[in-house]
């Protein structure tokens, strides 16, 4: 059911990333996402970065619509439907959280639920540059350690967060890894963790239209990310040729990750 909500607050989390909060009363769990409609513009899947009380999404300015979202202000109206999808299992264990870029958005509420339930948390975050590290301060009080990595070395480890993870996972023992970020990153995390027998849960993104498991836009192997995911066991993903290799554009064509979008006829010609 779609509902129109008013943005109740806006927080600039990083130079490119903004959190918008809004009132909602449908039950939501960490890992789930909503379809967020910017009236007059597009509708995009967005993970809930806050699942209780005033709900929230944390959006990184990427293309035109996400940039538009980050410019929304308190009092602006947005359309919301969902929450959709499955959730992270927050049963108390020792979890290594690995967030890349805006991927940390979906992991933060899961981390809070984990720790509240008595679980243990270690955090590794990566970003292009220091100021872009998302939710480091939100996670710090929950974690026994917060490891940071930046591409430009401006904060924490100089390099990929995957390097940090590869090291951590052999030195410390974790019950499971949660990760969200670029698919190539998640794939490396999965490889590192599976080598030492630690199960990994990845939150995956695909182009979405219906979000109710019918249109096939989000097809990933035999799964629909909108209904069967977005959280998948790494072991399942590893067996899919598409994982970290290809996704589908709005027409349904498979594209390798990182390739420029092909030209496509406008819809009504």
């Amino acid at each position, binding site marked *: *059911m*779609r509902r*129109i909500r008013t943005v109740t607050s806006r927080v600039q989390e990083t130079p490119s990333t903004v959190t918008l909060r809004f009132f909602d009363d449908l039950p939501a769990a960490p890992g789930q996402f909503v*379809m967020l*409609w910017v*009236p*007059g513009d*597009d*509708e*995009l899947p967005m993970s809930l970065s806050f699942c209780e009380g005033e709900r929230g999404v944390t959006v990184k300015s990427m293309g035109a619509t996400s940039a538009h979202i980050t410019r929304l202000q308190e009092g602006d*109206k947005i*359309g919301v*439907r969902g929450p959709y999808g499955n959730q992270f299992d927050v049963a108390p264990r020792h979890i290594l959280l690995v967030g890349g870029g805006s991927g940390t958005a979906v992991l933060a509420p899961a981390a809070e639920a984990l720790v509240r339930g008595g679980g243990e948390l270690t955090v590794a975050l990566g970003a292009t540059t220091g100021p872009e590290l998302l939710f480091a301060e939100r996670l710090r009080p929950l974690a026994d350690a917060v490891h940071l990595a930046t591409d430009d070395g401006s904060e924490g480890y100089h390099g990929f967060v995957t390097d940090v993870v590869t090291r951590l996972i052999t030195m410390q023992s974790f019950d499971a890894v949660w990760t969200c970020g670029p698919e190539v990153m998640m794939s490396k995390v999965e490889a590192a963790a599976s080598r030492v027998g630690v199960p990994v849960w990845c939150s995956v993104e695909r182009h979405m*239209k*219906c*979000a*109710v*498991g*019918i*249109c*096939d*836009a989000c*097809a990933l*192997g*035999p799964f*629909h990310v909108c*209904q069967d995911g977005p959280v998948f066991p790494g072991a399942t993903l590893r067996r899919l040729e598409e994982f970290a290799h290809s996704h*589908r*554009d*709005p*027409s*349904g*064509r*498979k594209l390798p990750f990182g390739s420029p979008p*092909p030209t*496509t*006829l*406008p*819809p*009504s010609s």
Partner: protein
Amino acid sequence: MADLRTRVGALELRSPLLLASGIWGESGVSLRRAYDAGAGAVVSKSIGSEPRDGYPNPTIEEYGSWGLLNAMGLPNPGMVAYRGELAAARQGGAVVIGSIFGHDASEFRTLALAMAETGVAALELNLSCPHAEGLGSEIGGDPTLVTEITRAVKEAVPLPVWAKITPNAADPAALAVAAVAGGADAITAINTVRAMAIDVDLQRPVLTHGLGGLSGPAVKPIGLAVVWQIYERVQIPIVGVGGISTVDDALQYLLAGASAVQIGTAITHGGAGLFSTLNAGISHRLDELKIPSVTALIGAAHRGTQSV
């Protein structure tokens, strides 16, 4: 155990439940998942000559358990890119019906030739999408064009051709008659019903395209009436579709005159498992009614009733 097999013309089907076009149709693996779950056949996404993104989101409006409004805008990767998906779908023996759409008879013919090469078991002509300019029901609402397009495709390919007609017509059965005139082997009915959602807070239409098509339980009584009326007018098999989500929904379409049925929107709630659940349910229900086979039901509700 009741016999679930049926046939649509020459095409034999292990179950009367098919996957409708546009549902799980972008990816060949998804199509195969539906077939592996027990579908009698799967209908591909409607494929055009070129890749199409479809309309921008929002493309969907949900109405709780009774309906779904969509204006996807016929997104599809185009015939060339889709071959690979069809190959994936047909791996393991899935029976695939290839759905195509075009602007005119010659585009339909070209697509039919390309689709036929992929090894599909039949073609379904989308003459009925209610929300695409110059396509779907805009041409499929004209009986002359329906005949012309059907004939062009029939002349081009040796496959069974199913004409999928629109309920957005004064007399949908007349469109079926037009398809028969063009040589159609079966009629598929119905596509979605033209509809719209408007938001009060925003004072604007919800779907980017404005108009869309309604599907799901709400359209079942509408689809049944269309199939009933077609059955009274044509001799070729009918494939019923619209709002089927339960065993009795499917059987009602058979009683109205359908030889097989397609399932679309219900997949939202039922997933692939719906096919095995419904297959088992139909078998059980037929046993309960002491009816030996699915085929015994086809058109049975017309018996003893005066033409209505």
